[in-house]
């Protein structure tokens, strides 16, 4: 028993990721944790999107299933699983069957390298960012084949749109990412890194998030990526492959039930994936905000209390709403449910104040908080923007983002080598 505790402790305090340590068992545990967490995040995201969007649009959103519709995503999931799974008679059955799995596989596999903390990643690949971009670009294969296999007009147009769109925006995205990789090489050895953990550590050692690096170059790069990532995930205002007013539902028009829910799952996990790339590359990954301005042990302690405080606040919100529940026998179960939910949140919050937990969870909390910010942005976009037309979308991708990305890359390289360049210039000048 004691050995077991030591064994677990050795991994909790390990300075390597389970993949790096080569421990298959712990890697499996992490994989289960990450994918379980991801599924929960997608479910939560589903509820949050409907609620937040509803409140932006002067309505209430789901209110019936559970208190404030909290159980709505679960009800939806059950409905989708029980729904008839229709395969059109004229569809290419094999491809139709495989397509959603390709999308889900691609969307989930990228999380292998997402760094939730210095050691909280399934593995730390040497080519982390390249792996993420490559694997996430595979999901378009699933979308294209889904559209083609449905053998119907709207899905095919949706598939063509999405393949053109994703290939186009990957270029701009890649250029923005490259500028960050150039920034990582600004150290004593002069070698950069593609590793996700390495990129965050580079920001730590350089004492600056890359969004502020070479102001405004980092910011521009971040914006290019932030636009391209919305296009890459087919979300509003770039949701042309599934533009419901034109193509009914785009590439997944013919899908239903479980298979459709796989697309849904993939879309949301892809959103989380690209947001984590953005957070890792520009927003300092798991690093807490204001590391320079509010530095010191005391501030570290204050910031490490945030996870607990957040959960306690959420719990208080639940209790407040419990108190506001209508006092009617019909609402009894709902009231109890909400109070129970609040109690659970509060307990988690209290647990997060406990030092051994607190120390190990802070990184994950900050990472998740930043990603959650992006998720909110996604919802906000959807509530605000109309949809781009296809030619305009291409114009933005190729004529605006791509040249900006190229210029950004050159400028970043120039800024990184400015002392050398300056010395060379002086040499030329002196030589004359």
């Amino acid at each position, binding site marked *: 028993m004691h050995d077991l505790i030591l064994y677990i402790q050795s991994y909790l305090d390990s300075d390597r990721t389970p993949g790096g340590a080569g421990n298959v068992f712990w890697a499996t545990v992490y994989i289960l944790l990450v994918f379980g967490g991801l599924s929960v995040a997608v479910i939560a995201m589903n509820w949050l999107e409907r609620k937040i*969007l509803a409140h*932006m*649009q*002067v*309505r209430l959103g789901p209110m019936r299933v559970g208190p404030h519709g909290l159980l709505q995503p679960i009800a939806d999931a059950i409905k989708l699983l029980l729904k008839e799974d229709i395969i059109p*008679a*004229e569809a290419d059955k094999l491809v139709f069957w495989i397509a959603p799995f390709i999308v889900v596989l691609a969307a989930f596999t990228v999380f292998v390298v997402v760094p939730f903390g210095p050691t909280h990643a399934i593995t730390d690949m040497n080519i982390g960012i390249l792996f993420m971009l490559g694997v996430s670009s595979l999901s378009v294969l699933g979308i294209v084949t889904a559209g083609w296999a449905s*053998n*119907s*007009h709207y899905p*095919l*147009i949706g598939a063509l749109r999405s393949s053109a769109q994703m290939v186009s925006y990957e270029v701009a995205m890649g250029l923005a990412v490259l500028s960050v990789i150039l920034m990582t090489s600004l150290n004593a050895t002069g070698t950069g890194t593609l590793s996700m953990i390495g990129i965050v550590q580079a920001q730590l050692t350089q004492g600056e998030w890359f969004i502020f690096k070479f102001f405004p170059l980092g910011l521009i790069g971040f914006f290019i990526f932030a636009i391209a990532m919305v296009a890459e995930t087919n979300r*509003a*205002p770039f*949701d*042309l492959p599934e*533009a*419901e*007013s*034109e193509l*009914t539902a785009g590439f997944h028009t013919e899908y239903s039930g479980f298979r459709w829910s796989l697309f849904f799952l993939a879309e949301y996990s892809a959103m989380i994936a690209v947001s984590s790339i953005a957070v890792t590359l520009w927003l300092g990954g798991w690093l807490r905000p204001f590391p320079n301005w509010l530095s010191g042990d005391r501030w570290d302690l204050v910031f490490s209390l945030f996870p607990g405080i957040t959960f306690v606040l959420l719990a208080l919100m639940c209790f407040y709403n419990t108190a506001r529940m209508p006092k009617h026998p019909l609402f009894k179960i709902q009231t109890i449910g909400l109070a129970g939910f609040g109690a659970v949140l509060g307990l988690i919050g209290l647990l997060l104040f406990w030092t051994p937990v607190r120390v190990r969870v802070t990184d994950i909390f900050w990472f998740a908080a930043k990603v959650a910010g992006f998720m909110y942005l996604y919802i906000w976009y*959807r*509530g*605000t*923007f*109309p*949809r*781009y*037309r*296809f*030619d*305009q979308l291409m114009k933005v991708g190729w004529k605006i983002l791509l040249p900006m990305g190229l210029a950004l890359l050159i400028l970043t390289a120039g800024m990184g080598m400015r002392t050398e360049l300056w010395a060379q210039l002086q040499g030329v000048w002196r030589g004359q």
Partner: protein
Amino acid sequence: MSGYRSIWGSRAGNDHCNDPPEIPRLADEGARLRDDADKKASPGGLGTDGIRMTDPNTLSPLDLETPDKTFLDANELIINMGPQHPATHGVLRVILRLDGEKVMGLECVIGYLHRGVEKIAENRTYTMFNPYVDRMDYVAAVSNGLGYCEAVEKLLNVGAPARAQYIRVILTELNRIASHQLWLGTHALDIGAITPLFYTFRDREEILKIFEKYCGARLTTHAFRIGGLQYEAYEGFEREVKNFLTFFTPKIDEYEELLTTNRIWLERTKGVGTISGPDAIALGVTGPVLRASGVKWDIRKAQPYANYKNFEFEVPTGQNGDTYDRYLVRIAEMRQSCRIIEQAVAGVPEGPIMAKVPKVMKPPVGEIYHSIEAPKGELGYFIVSDGSTQPYRIRVRPPSFVNLQALEVMCRGQLVADVIAVIGTLDIVLGEVDR
């Protein structure tokens, strides 16, 4: 894009648009329209207002260049949109002929909601037919009722009393706002902005509440009777209308905040579905669509009916005749409607609300055409009376039906996404198109 057809042609065997339908060509019409436009370089105007014509050479959608043929565009894709489609505003079916995503031609198939309203009219008395007109443009039921009642009144040679006229104007203009709100919400939704829909529906609710309080119905109101009104305005009617105005005027700014300067909205609507003034006139397009093309013509001003001549308001016009201008014109019309309502509420006189009309209406033999400015354009009623209690023939001149005809001209050469935008901007109601 070759090969589209080959995929559809044989593999999508049971698709009902397998056989490419014949799409009528407007080509020779186009040449003629352009000739007309050239001829009418300086057309006459409506007195001082005049008709502001746009340059037909640059804006006519009919003179599209034919794209160079490459090996990719040997075949065209025929795609069927509707009658069940989220963006066709009902049961409109549009058959698109596409080259890639570019629309090479389209044909509207209508009639899915045909109920034979004109035939029904011939078998009902004048009074009995009144509720039926509400079911045509069900979004602007009050306007329909106004047009019908006034037409029959004209035929009977009676006039509604002044008080009734004022209340009619208030309700009709409220209904115009409601109609435009519904248009704005759905149009924005088509273009992908989902939020305005809920804003407009929130505010439309207030109008519907007034209707409900006045006559018990929200949508198909049957608010007016031949000869005036059946119900006296309820207690506090004027106050509630005034309250609505103070509530609603800032809301228009709210809509505009969301859309008017939104870059994506501008890109999606500017230069999309352009129709020049002469083309619009030739195609019989009326209402905001015509005004957005620069023709300042509003029946409320040109041939005032009811008591519109008592009110001061402007007729907003656009310049380019594109989707954005139509949006601006309708937004401006909402403001003008507010203005009219404000004046009308302030001036509602006391008095009777019903003229002396016989219980059994037997208009003398004769025929009459009466038209009003409905929210969607010129709504006309042509009534033939044979002296009996039932109309011999009632013809409804539906604005949506005629405006929808312009869809092909406005869409040719645009992209699929623009077709959606143009269907939205035409503001059609299928109940009225199909009758």
